[in-house]
């Protein structure tokens, strides 16, 4: 096995929760509001079904093929040639998706650091993430665990501070135009929830396997609840103006004012966003690097870290010329790609494995 480190089930949950939430933290509420209007709080409920599904598939595949990531187990199931093609596609999607995430991050930071070159903002993030990936899964798990409170607490504090200004009446009328708008609003978060399939790369390194399902389940539920709450808070604060606001959570933080003294909390939100993006980008980075090493049958993934980091940086510019393309990609292509690659293809593989009765006996004997 390429990865020798071990992480706990709790760490898996704390790694996977920011993966979903960091993107949702940025424009989630307004993206959902554009489709679902004031029913946007329902959208995460529908979208989380995708999260439960992809996590369940990942765990089922892991049960049949313990110690194998999606790249390796595809080889077991489909044979060498198709698995090579599939593996390449997976790595390509991971790389491009990661580039879009990094670009999104950099474009947001660039609102405040207007003169700093984008390449520096992105390079700094990729460098930090590459150190985490170099440290291996244990380092990533631990940093995620350390940062987790820093990710959650400012958000809770912000909600507490704007609480008196909230108007729950904005929720009404519920289901004004039926269920359809809220289901449409679930399309984009569906992509984010599908990303939870990345635990497929973490499960082989899990030390207490029996808690894997529980931890992943709580991560999905936690992300769903956070999204529902955040959607409600922003709706209660902004009403019909919500779909027009690019970064609703930052806007909410800017609204905070306690005794004319405690205000301008947007820097806290930015800090939270940086922490979340760090975890998210490291996860995608790690999956790309580990997957490439497995795909090429290397004995170590360490030599790949810097070249892949370089590729991510290049993809940030090649694939995404501007913030408008990021928006187009995030609204249409990326959710479709993620659902295909993180839900349907793994589900197809699982089905194939069940039909053909394939499972990895040697590994099971070892662990069992």
């Amino acid at each position, binding site marked *: 096995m390429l990865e020798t480190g071990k992480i706990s089930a709790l760490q898996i949950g704390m790694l996977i929760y920011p993966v979903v939430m960091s993107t949702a933290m940025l424009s989630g509420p307004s993206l959902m509001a554009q489709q679902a209007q004031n029913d946007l709080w329902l959208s995460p409920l529908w979208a989380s079904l995708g999260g439960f599904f992809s996590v369940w598939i990942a765990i089922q595949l892991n049960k049949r093929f313990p110690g194998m990531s999606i790249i390796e187990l595809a080889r077991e199931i489909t044979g060498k040639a198709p698995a090579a093609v599939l593996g390449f596609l997976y790595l390509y999607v991971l790389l491009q998706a990661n580039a879009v995430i990094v670009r999104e991050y950099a474009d947001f930071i660039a*609102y405040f650091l207007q*003169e700093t070159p984008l390449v*520096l903002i992105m390079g700094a993030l990729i460098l930090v993430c590459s150190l985490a990936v170099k440290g291996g899964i244990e380092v990533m798990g631990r940093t995620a665990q350390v940062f987790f409170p820093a990710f959650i607490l400012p958000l809770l504090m912000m909600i507490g501070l704007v609480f008196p200004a909230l108007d729950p*009446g904005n929720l*009404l009328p519920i289901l004004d135009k039926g269920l359809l708008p809220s289901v449409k609003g679930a399309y984009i978060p569906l992509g984010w929830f599908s990303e939870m399939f990345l635990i497929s790369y973490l499960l082989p390194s899990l030390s207490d396997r029996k808690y894997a399902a529980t931890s992943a389940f709580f991560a999905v539920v936690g992300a769903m609840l956070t999204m529902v709450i955040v959607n409600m808070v922003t709706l209660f604060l902004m009403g019909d*103006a919500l779909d027009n606001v690019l970064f609703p959570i930052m*806007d909410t933080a800017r*609204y905070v004012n306690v005794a004319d003294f405690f205000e301008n909390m947007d820097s806290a939100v930015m800090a939270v966003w940086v922490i979340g993006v760090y975890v998210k980008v490291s996860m995608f980075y790690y999956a790309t690097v580990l997957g490439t090493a497995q795909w090429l049958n290397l004995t170590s993934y360490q030599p790949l870290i810097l070249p892949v980091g370089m590729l991510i940086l290049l993809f940030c510019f090649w694939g995404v010329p501007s913030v408008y393309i990021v928006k187009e990609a995030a609204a249409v292509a990326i959710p479709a790609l993620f659902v295909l690659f993180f839900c349907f293809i793994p589900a197809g593989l699982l089905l194939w494995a069940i039909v053909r009765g394939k499972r990895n006996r040697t590994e099971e004997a070892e662990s069992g």
Partner: protein
Amino acid sequence: MRTWGSVLILVVCALLLGGCWDRTEINDLAIITAAAVDKAEESEIVLSIQVFIPRAVGGPGLGGPTGSSERALTTILSAKGENIADAMSKVQSKLPRKIFWGHCKVYLFGEAVAKDGIAGHIDFLVRHPEPRNRAYLYVSKGKAGEHLGNNSLLERSTAEALRELASLHLGMAVTLIDFRNMLNGESRAVVLPYIEAGSKLEKPAQIQENTLLLGSAIFRKDKMIGVLSTKATRGLLWLRDEIIRASISVQIPAGQGRVSVMPIRGKTKLIPAIEDGKWSILVKIEAEGDIVENGTKLDMMEMSSNALVQKAVEDDVRSRIELALYHLQKELNADVTNFAAAFHRKYPQKWHEAKQNWDKIYPQIEVSTQIHITVRRPGLVTDSVGHPGSHDKRK
């Protein structure tokens, strides 16, 4: 060796905290404390900004207190332009430091520019990352720019004075984010506080004499269409369920005098109803207050006089609400009370059918009121100090 290595890393990281390209020194910034937009010739506007002068704050030092108070704390700069962004770049060329919006707490709009529509200006303020969401908006009679040069009696600048005024809740207090939300709301009507012309508040004597707050400016979409008086504005505040910190004085015929009640807390509910195609709204107010002045012969501890006061205050609040609604419904036809949202929430189906005709429906809505004011405490004395023992039964 390892420790020194980590110390070195920390030091290098600390150096990066300066922000590289985007480092900003505070003495490179011109901090705006208030901005005013006025109409110029044709489609142009005049942007006036009140800029904080940092040198003036340092205190008199050893030189003694005399004279230093004469030094102005702020200065005014203005320029013409097609819009705020254009005018701002022209103002910038007059300043050696970079304009910084982050501390601007007040935006003033002249009446003329408000009548032309201010959506474009608001868009600049909402779109630009620097201006704060919580900055207060005002519409000024005459030229808004005149306010900026005025001195304030108590505060450092007019900007600070206007900001404090908003937090007193005597009239409407509308922030940038409130304006944006109202403009995007169901009724597309906006209300801003309306203040006296700056030229009438130049000297301390004038400030002592004239009232700053004149009522509220009513907007349909982003264009100002009329003004509500202070009295009608109070009614509007009740309808909008906003806090009012101004006493209500009522005549009590039975006690041959006036009683004033200060509202402490209140809750207003708008309950819409559609019956046989007739749209109506029930305004339900529950409020509490304390008696602050008693000029009558009544003992305020008596149940009977309490009931009289409550009834009188209820009638007063009702008349204010009716006054506000008369102007809003019959004259201005601007739904700043947001009845539209109340109907949308309760009757989504019918609302979608009627949405297009809202301008015709709104003036026809019948409004009934159900007001309940509870006077909780009589203050520190029972009967009026002017009429001691007037209720005495031993006589």
